[in-house]
């Protein structure tokens, strides 16, 4: 499911292009395009015509390519690199408020549906037997991922958003004993990575996205050796 996030992230560039082209603003464009892409993917996945990997591989890169074409054909004056790798300097104060709102909605949606999300992750049939419709939960996950992509696009960049979906969770997997703990530790790891990554990016004038990912990967390797040391005792 992590690569599902990557595919949604890839489709966001089309949202950026369309958002500027139609004058609706980047955030709005990204949310609409990612959401439509996510729903299209869920629908195709349900119909089981292609394997999930193939489906994601085709759709994600198609969306990315169309996005680049739309942006370059119209000679829109934007720095594609900023969207690919993240550029914290492009974040305005109104963007910040949208991020706060996005983060708030994400936390709320996850908290409300926490146990259903867990059960669907463990086993879809088990969830069905207990009255959950996995389609709704997958749709919810699409919405949450869309929001996450939209709010982190400018900081992390669409090529590296997946890294932040996977690495903090994998780091915390080594240290946690329950799903709740894992979510909390992953959040903490994410926050530490972002803050230190931004400092790193200021210090060396490096792009913010890669700097954040490098820090989170360092934490990931540390968590492994930490666990290793504990087990040694």
């Amino acid at each position: 499911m992590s690569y599902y996030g990557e595919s949604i992230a890839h489709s966001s560039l089309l949202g950026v292009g369309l958002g500027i082209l139609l004058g609706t603003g980047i955030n709005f464009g990204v949310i609409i395009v990612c959401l439509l892409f996510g729903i299209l993917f869920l629908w195709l996945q349900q119909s089981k015509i292609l394997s999930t990997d193939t489906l994601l591989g085709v759709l994600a890169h198609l969306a990315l390519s169309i996005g680049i074409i739309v942006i370059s054909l119209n000679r829109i004056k934007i720095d594609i690199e900023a969207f690919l790798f993240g550029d914290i300097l492009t974040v305005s104060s109104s963007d910040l408020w949208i991020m706060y709102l996005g983060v708030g909605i994400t936390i709320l949606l996850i908290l409300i549906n926490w146990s259903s999300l867990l059960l669907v992750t463990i086993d879809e049939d088990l969830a069905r037997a207990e009255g959950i419709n996995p389609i709704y939960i997958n749709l919810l996950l699409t919405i949450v991922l869309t929001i996450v992509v939209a709010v982190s696009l400018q900081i992390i960049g669409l090529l590296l958003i997946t890294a932040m979906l996977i690495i903090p969770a994998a780091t915390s997997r080594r240290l946690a004993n329950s799903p709740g703990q894992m979510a909390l530790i992953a959040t903490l790891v994410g926050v530490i990575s972002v803050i230190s990554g931004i400092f790193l990016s200021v210090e060396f004038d490096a792009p913010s996205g890669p700097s954040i990912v490098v820090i989170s990967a360092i934490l990931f390797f540390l968590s492994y050796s930490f666990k290793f040391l504990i087990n040694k005792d």
Partner: protein
Amino acid sequence: MKITNALISSKNVSVLKHQKFILENIDIQINKNDFITIIGPNGAGKTMLLKCLMGFYKPTSGSIERKEQLKIGYMPQSINVINTMPMTVKGFITVRKKYDDISLNKVITEVNIREIVDKQLSVLSGGEMQRVLLARSLLNNPDLLILDEPAQNLDISGQLNFYKLIQEIYSKRDISILMVSHDLHLVMVSTKKVLCLYKHICCSGAPQQIAKDPEFLAMFGKDMANMMSIYQHSHDHSHDHSYLVGEE
């Protein structure tokens, strides 16, 4: 047919996929205190039948009625996504369940998982995992327990122990059981009715009757029938098995 008393009853249920029948005209009725075992070769539609009966899947035609407020406990063959997420046995059993300590303790004792209740799911053995799945399916005191090849991944002694446990639960609780199983010779003792499925219901009846059925013999051969009669023998000495042995 008293449809009103059945926990679940299906009428003419068919499932068509890519112009092929997965299930064809299934009539089945599960009553209180039934213990039904479904057997059939791979691809016979056993899991699909369970999915239709539980309402996960809408059949192409036919109708399925479930008793109102029917509580079903479902135990899948296995669950796989456990290594991506840390979770204790107790955490897993109680996810999204309303329960009290008394019923939790009762289930833990019943399926004998007290020693592993604080362990991580990822370190459990096959047999332990099956008992944990069973515990979860029992926690809300179901009227009907649906088991999909519950002992498939266990070794022979694990299978014997598991079926013994099912038998105990069946006799102690006021419960009905619907089970898919290939280990017919092992469940012979407990099951009351065997249902032989290959897209349609080939034959059904008490285990000792079904071994005589020509359709059963055609599908599973005489070896299976003989094996069943051997296991049955120790429980029912009055039965005459001459129809099975000595032929050919």
